[in-house]
């Protein structure tokens, strides 16, 4: 969907109301990780959310949630994305029980 590098996913920042340089959000997550990441889901309309099987009240519909793909599919990459989300001040980060190994889901619902 998008290889974030701090500027190319401006469409996400707008939808997520997550500004660069504020110590949180998509850019911060990518910076803390230390390299390009693949975003697989950002803002969703209710219709789109329904079509992809999202939860009925998913934070993606509020525009403050983001999924980053685990490109290598390894536990190490998942863990590093998880830590980076923490450092990006994500309010809630799903456990692997919830989001599985293929991506990390984080949101900034309290920002």
């Amino acid at each position, binding site marked *: 969907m998008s290889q974030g*590098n701090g500027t190319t996913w401006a469409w996400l920042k707008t939808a997520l109301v997550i500004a660069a340089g504020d110590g949180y959000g998509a850019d911060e997550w990518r910076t803390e990780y*230390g*390299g*390009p990441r693949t975003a697989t889901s950002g803002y969703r309309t209710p219709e789109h959310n329904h079509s992809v099987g*999202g*939860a009925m*009240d*998913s*934070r*993606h519909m509020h525009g403050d*949630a983001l999924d980053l793909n685990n490109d290598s599919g390894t536990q190490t990459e998942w*863990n*590093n994305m*998880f*830590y*980076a*989300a*923490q*450092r990006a*001040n*994500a*309010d*809630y*980060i*799903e*456990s692997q*029980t*919830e*989001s*599985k190994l293929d991506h990390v*889901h*984080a*949101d900034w*619902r*309290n920002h």
Partner: protein
Amino acid sequence: MMTGLHYHKLALVIALAAMNSALARGQSQPGALARLQSSDHSERRSGFYSLLSSVDSSGSSLSYRARNERLAAFARQQPAVGRGLIGLLERENAEPAAQVSEDRYIGDLIAAVAALRDPNAVHALAGAINTGRLATEGLAILGDAAVPAVLTEAERLDYPTRVSALLTLSEMVTITPAPTISNENRGQIRSILLRALDDSNRFAREAGLDGLVAFPDTVVRRAVARVAAQDPLVLHDGGKLRYPVRERALTTLGKLDALWPRARS
């Protein structure tokens, strides 16, 4: 133009509305509280949102934070509500398999419990320490009450928990307004953050650096300067070499020197 009589009528209407609202809360609250203890996950979830909506008569026009603050204020008047929420989070922590991907429920529950600012919530929040800032900030603002539990989590072998606990401790000593932390607890936090600088996990080292800003002494400065010069982590980012931990250490050094020049010696 409104006359004095109009104002009296308006005041009466507002007072009646407030009484009705309180009455409605009184009627719905026991039912919602009972549902929080249900053995059925969806029933507990539903009870939680009933309780939350009972304090938000505006129909969700309140901000996320304001709604939780209102629920916390209500819990201060009705202690059974706070106890119910804390017990609910402890229950959900113990049943992670029941959690559904992208369901906002667990995050909303953590936010509600954190907003209570209740020392009795330490165990519940510590059980959710791996879920992000809602939980870690909720623990950090409790200060002394949360230190023993967070120190225990920081000693765990699994890295996500350890890193989360280190971040919490760092936040505890740097947030404003500063929570109450005894000198003894500050000493323990300083020790564990210093030790984190030698952790094999990059994020644990960074979490340690964040909190050491609060300890302006020569031992800390020397340790941070060593990390700034020698940390081994190198990342290849877009064709450039980056040393993220060294960069973080330099930031920490800058803050130490700016705030407490005496730490340079």
